[in-house]
């Protein structure tokens, strides 16, 4: 398991949103395609934007808070047929419980809960050439569509 952080979000050549995770201690990167709604949820959190009313992932976080459960970590543990699989690891009364999730939802929640994101080595190896660095992933994305978190306008994510 390798800890990764959200490095950036880019739009690929087919206009899909892609979140790029990067090793916290290392240079390997993992691009994961996500839907526009999840992208918006992640972007708002990264930009520190607060909605007047709780968005869906804010509600999820509130549910955990009200039930006094912590999100210990999120794990992207598998990649099968081009689909990533993730887990939320919840701590409830001292016990760990795992809940199956898509990585986009898991990451959106992890950012709100301040929980670390771990990725299985086999997933990183399967998904990308292990020698590619994060810088390579960004520069290879089509220049016309490349946008980083700082420049991305919310209106673009819909």
């Amino acid at each position: 398991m390798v800890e990764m952080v959200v490095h950036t979000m880019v739009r690929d050549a087919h206009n899909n949103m892609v979140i790029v995770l990067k090793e916290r201690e290392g240079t390997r990167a993992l691009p994961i395609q996500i839907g526009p709604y999840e992208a918006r949820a992640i972007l708002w959190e990264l930009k520190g934007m607060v909605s007047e009313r709780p968005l869906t992932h804010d509600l999820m976080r509130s549910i955990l808070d009200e039930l006094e459960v912590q999100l210990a970590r999120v794990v992207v543990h598998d990649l099968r047929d081009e689909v990533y699989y993730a887990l939320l690891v919840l701590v409830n009364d001292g016990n760990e419980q795992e809940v199956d999730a898509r990585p986009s939802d898991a990451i959106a929640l992890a950012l709100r809960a301040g929980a670390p994101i771990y990725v299985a080595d086999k997933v990183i190896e399967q998904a990308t050439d292990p020698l590619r660095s994060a810088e390579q992933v960004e520069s290879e994305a089509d220049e016309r569509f490349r946008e980083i978190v700082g420049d991305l306008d919310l209106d673009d994510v819909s």
Partner: protein
Amino acid sequence: MMVEMVVQAITRDERSNSVVLLKEKEGARAVPIMIGPWEAQAIACHLQGLQPQRPLTHDLMLDIVQQLDFKVARVLVNDLRERVFYALLVLVNNGREEQVDARPSDAIALAVRAGAPIYVAEKIIAEAGSSGLAEAQTDVTH
């Protein structure tokens, strides 16, 4: 007083905004609530019996609640202030009850998945109810 309502339709208003139309379970009054397109899809998908390959966001939300041994007992659309609706999720586990503030769209998306009843405050039906969609109030201001 709270009145039980059901999702009668997900539709669009004349400006293409998505609207969820709640109707009294025992009665004819209806309350239209303007919601976002994603939330509309989340509700409609479930009501159409579509099974996604991977859990969608509201499926995950219900999974979390159930894994923690709680049930969604009911959803309350309990306030309408400055054209914005407010809702509560009521989660229960044995004797313990927790209420969580939510937008009606998320609350309804969760209620339909959990098979939980939806209650709307009488004062809201009186204020926002209509026989059509002409004056839908909103779920969220972004």
